[in-house]
């Protein structure tokens, strides 16, 4: 059992806070259903740093790395920015154009500011899911609260960067996104670690609430490193007509990532989509997927993944669709490309129909690059390495996401930077 301290905020409903704390304490030794078990006591805590007015005085190398995960330190063409380094919020703010309609602050700050905020904590994700959720509840290191006001359309992306700078750190962020009725936004969330960090743990709780008719495109780019363990826990609750699109991109070696976000399509005609691009390399254990519970009449879900595994990476690609109501539809698609005989890809698509009025389907394919495709490109004059690189880049084609054009350019740019060093 590890030592924990109580978060210092007091405005939270005392009874609920106590209940959450008790449930967390009971779950502190509860192993996760999937992924390698992590010894939580082997990490250290970092003292808080001061806030900065901008991102100009970031430590050396941090700016450059932020760019690699789609985060623009100059904040141009961004509706708002949240930047957290270790346990400290370095910057959070919204561009003047969206001021008043968008709020982007630390969740600890939000809890101090709003009495109602607590009701959005530990509702889409259960605190006693496993030891990581429990740990995050007891050792809460900020995270962002994004609120988009009713009817507000945020036409340029918001950005967040969660950065680990100190070696052997554990970083437990708790994010909450509240999309009010008929609001729209897109966010690029980049997670990155300093090159000097040999080992660290990132636990990210993200609870997303989409009210009636709201739409959120959530693009997360992970750029971790060997020796880093990552345990995101994400829950999304959708009301009538709401749309949630998740794009998850993980192209760099990592110690282990295990995440299985769940979208609850409670509202009628709501839609959830999980897209992922994974490049597993150098002993990485990557266990990712998406589950969608189609509870609302006419709700739709789609889980689509493109997975590459090379060297001795182990990649599990999961998907679960649960059709609970009539006129619901869902489709799972997993395509895997093996570039090494020492690596593996394990696709686990699951469908569960609980009513005759649901239509669920899946397709999965895992294999190696077709030799004839390599020879074809070599016949155009490319070397074998160039041909493989083109095919791999093509396999990780972001156009399957259907992103808005500016966002796609940003994501493509980030992928190109990462892949240029991987391939």
């Amino acid at each position: 059992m590890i030592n924990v301290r109580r978060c210092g905020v007091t405005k939270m409903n005392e009874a609920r806070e106590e209940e959450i704390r008790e449930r967390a304490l009971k779950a502190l030794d509860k192993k996760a259903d999937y992924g390698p078990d992590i010894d939580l006591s082997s990490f250290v805590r970092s003292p808080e740093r001061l806030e900065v007015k901008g991102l100009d005085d970031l430590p050396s190398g941090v700016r450059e790395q932020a760019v690699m995960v789609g985060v623009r330190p100059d904040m141009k063409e961004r509706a708002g920015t949240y930047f957290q380094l270790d346990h400290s919020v370095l910057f959070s703010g919204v561009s003047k154009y969206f001021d008043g309609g968008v709020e982007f602050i630390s969740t600890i700050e939000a809890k101090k500011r709003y009495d109602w905020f607590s009701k959005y904590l530990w509702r889409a994700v259960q605190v006693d899911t496993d030891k990581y959720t429990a740990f995050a509840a007891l050792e809460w290191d900020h995270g962002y609260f994004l609120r988009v006001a009713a009817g507000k359309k945020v036409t340029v992306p918001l950005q967040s960067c969660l950065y680990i700078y100190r070696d052997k750190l554990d970083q437990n962020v708790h994010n909450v996104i509240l999309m009010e009725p008929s609001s729209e936004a897109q966010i690029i969330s980049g997670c990155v670690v300093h090159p000097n960090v040999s080992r660290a743990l990132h636990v990210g709780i993200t609870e997303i609430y989409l009210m009636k008719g709201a739409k959120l495109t959530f693009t997360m780019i992970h750029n971790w490193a060997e020796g880093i363990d990552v345990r995101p826990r994400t829950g999304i609750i959708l009301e009538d007509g709401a749309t949630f699109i998740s794009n998850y991109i993980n192209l760099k070696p990592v110690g282990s990532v295990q995440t299985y976000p769940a979208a609850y399509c409670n509202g009628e005609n709501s839609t959830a989509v999980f897209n992922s691009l994974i490049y597993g390399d150098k002993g990485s254990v990557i266990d990712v997927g998406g589950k969608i519970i189609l509870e609302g009449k006419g709700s739709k879900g789609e889980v689509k993944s493109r997975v590459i595994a090379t060297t001795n990476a182990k990649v599990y690609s999961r998907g679960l669709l649960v059709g609970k109501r009539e006129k619901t539809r869902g489709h799972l698609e997993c395509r895997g490309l093996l570039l090494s005989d020492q690596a593996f890809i394990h696709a686990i698509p699951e469908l569960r129909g609980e009513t005759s009025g649901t239509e669920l389907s899946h397709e999965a394919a895992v294999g190696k690059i077709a030799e004839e495709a390599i020879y074809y490109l070599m016949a155009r004059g490319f070397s074998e390495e160039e041909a493989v690189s083109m095919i791999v880049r093509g396999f990780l084609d972001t156009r399957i996401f259907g992103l808005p054009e500016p966002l796609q350019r940003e994501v493509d740019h980030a992928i190109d930077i990462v892949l240029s060093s991987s391939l």
Partner: protein
Amino acid sequence: MLALEVRDLVVEVDGRRVLDGLNLEVPKGELHVLFGPNGSGKTSLILTILGLPQYKVLRGQIILNGEDITFLPINERVKRGIGVLFQNPPQIKGVRLGDVLKKLAKDETPMEIARKVNFPAFYLDRELNCGFSGGEIRRCELTQLMAQKPSFLLLDEPDSGVDVENLELVGSIINELAKGRSGILITHLGYILRYVEAQRAHVILNGKIACSGRPIEILDHILREGYWWCDKCKEMRGD
């Protein structure tokens, strides 16, 4: 001066002999036509010249512009001037025609090249050979050859699956590509020869050249009498 010389070529694929002592000479500046029944070795010859690893050369030589390229890797042969139009190119998901043309073309934009084969702009965004009709595949192949500008063309059935309207277009592009260059063209029914100027034709039977002559005359004989005539021709030559 020869652009290509194939000497006594014996080739196997998966232990099956596909070329059996084939000899061929293509002088510089000439385009030669290859005829032959299915399975006679036409495509095998093209893919062996290109250097696909499954085509194992047991004997003989392939000489391109005086250099022995028999055992060079594919891309090295391409660097020396080989360019191929595939009969059945593979579908490559995620790799877009426009991106490939951008990498290959030196003095033209992908759009300019696409326009020459009547491809609208959005075709540049299409994945290589995915969902293309037979005619579109030929034109897609031609765009890549136009960008490559090879000195020796290997054209495997460029008229296959092409409709009447586009046959003239394909023919004129091949003529343009072949101007001042050399190459080999495979055709089954010879439709493309109405539009393409070829200097000589050869018939391949059982992995070797059975007879050679003027393209129109040989095609005429084949269409009238079938390849039986070529067998007879071989007998007449005493091979």
